[in-house]
């Protein structure tokens, strides 16, 4: 057994221990912190699997936004035990354990019996990279070869934000999400919220830009921008926008809208829906990605801010 394998076993053991902790610990808050730590460490596994694009996504979601979402909810639901049903009986728990062990065993068997040599689409993705002019194959798959998936994923984000907004009470309809955060304007948090966003915005744009040739891309960059916005909101330096405001809604539909327009243009002037003319492929993809980054940043930020709670009148 090589030393690399030992490291991999240690990493897998740490991650799995955190997973077990998340499930078995009685306190909800501890379980949430355990899951956030799990999400951060899974990014290490993705790097080890040589999938840096996914690692970046996991770091941005598991580390930044998912942590804020889950931990915020756990802190608010501190006394939510009254919402829980009774703990299931011994029989149900034994049955669930048996089912889970069986599922895990079947999956483990599948992993051990995977065909050799493994099927792969990597050569096809590399061979067709000329059509877009981008050299990061994952971005090629996301933005060109499977562009339909990516477009519909953005529609899912839009549907999620509509779903969240529809939970607003009538009095706050179209208002501002979340409480108005207060912090000492000369305190530590306000200091951090003034110092970090300029750096974070540069890093977010860098991750977007490098995504055409190296791991990175619109979603990862947008997630970083969203966290910087949330930091300013949490430090009380900025307020959440009115969700009924026209510019907010325009930004939310800009990414999928531009994507759809380019797709329809491909149907009219080109070969098929979402087909890019090879000469224009790179500028078109970059334009869509920039619009999507803005949309993603706004959508993720507003998803985390939650349903409107304050009415339009101050």
């Amino acid at each position, binding site marked *: 057994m090589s030393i690399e394998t030992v490291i991999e076993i240690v990493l897998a053991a740490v991650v799995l221990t955190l997973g077990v902790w998340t499930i078995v610990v009685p306190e909800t808050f501890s379980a949430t912190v355990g899951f956030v730590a799990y999400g951060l460490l899974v990014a290490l596994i993705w790097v080890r699997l040589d999938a840096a694009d996914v690692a970046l996504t996991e770091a941005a979601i598991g580390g930044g936004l998912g942590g804020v979402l889950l931990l915020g909810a756990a802190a608010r639901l501190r006394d939510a035990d009254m919402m829980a049903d009774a703990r299931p009986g011994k029989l149900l728990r034994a049955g669930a354990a048996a089912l889970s062990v069986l599922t895990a065993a079947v999956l483990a068997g599948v992993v051990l019996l995977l065909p050799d040599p493994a099927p792969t689409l990597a050569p096809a993705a590399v061979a067709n990279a000329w059509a877009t002019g981008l050299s990061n194959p994952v971005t090629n798959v996301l933005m060109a070869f499977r562009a339909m998936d990516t477009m519909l994923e953005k529609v899912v984000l839009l549907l999620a934000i509509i779903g969240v907004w529809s939970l607003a009470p009538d009095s706050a309809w179209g208002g501002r999400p979340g409480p108005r955060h207060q912090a000492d304007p000369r305190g*530590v*948090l306000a*200091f*951090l919220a003034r*110092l*970090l966003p300029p*750096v974070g915005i540069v890093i977010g744009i860098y991750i977007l830009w490098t995504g055409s040739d190296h791991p990175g891309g619109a979603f990862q960059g947008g997630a970083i921008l969203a966290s910087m916005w949330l930091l300013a909101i949490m430090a009380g330096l900025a307020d959440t926008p009115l969700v009924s405001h026209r510019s907010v809604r325009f930004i939310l539909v800009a990414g999928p809208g531009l994507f759809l327009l380019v797709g329809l243009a491909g149907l009219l002037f080109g070969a098929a829906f979402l087909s890019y003319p090879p000469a224009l492929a790179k500028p078109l993809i970059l334009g869509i990605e920039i619009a999507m980054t803005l949309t993603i940043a706004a959508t993720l930020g507003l998803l985390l801010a939650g349903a409107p709670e304050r009415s339009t009148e101050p």
Partner: protein
Amino acid sequence: MSLARDVMTIAAVSAGAFFFLAGTVGLLRFPDTLTRLHALTKADNLGLGLVVLGLLPQAASLRDGLKLVGIWLLGLLAGATVSQLIARAARHGQLNR
């Protein structure tokens, strides 16, 4: 030249690993929240700085080196601010308990 770089990497990364060990011992042995916070944010950030210092000679380009230093600076900023915030929250929680 390559040997000198490797020696520097080995020395600095080993020193970094030692400070991670010190930080973990502190986490295991210190009795309350504030002292553990002290162990975590100071020893571990020094460890991270030494690991970054050790990896600088191995960096492929100037840009990678700058990113490495940037990572350490971000870590320092996070350690300095978040430790204050957590400590304040911990004291607040104790007063209310």
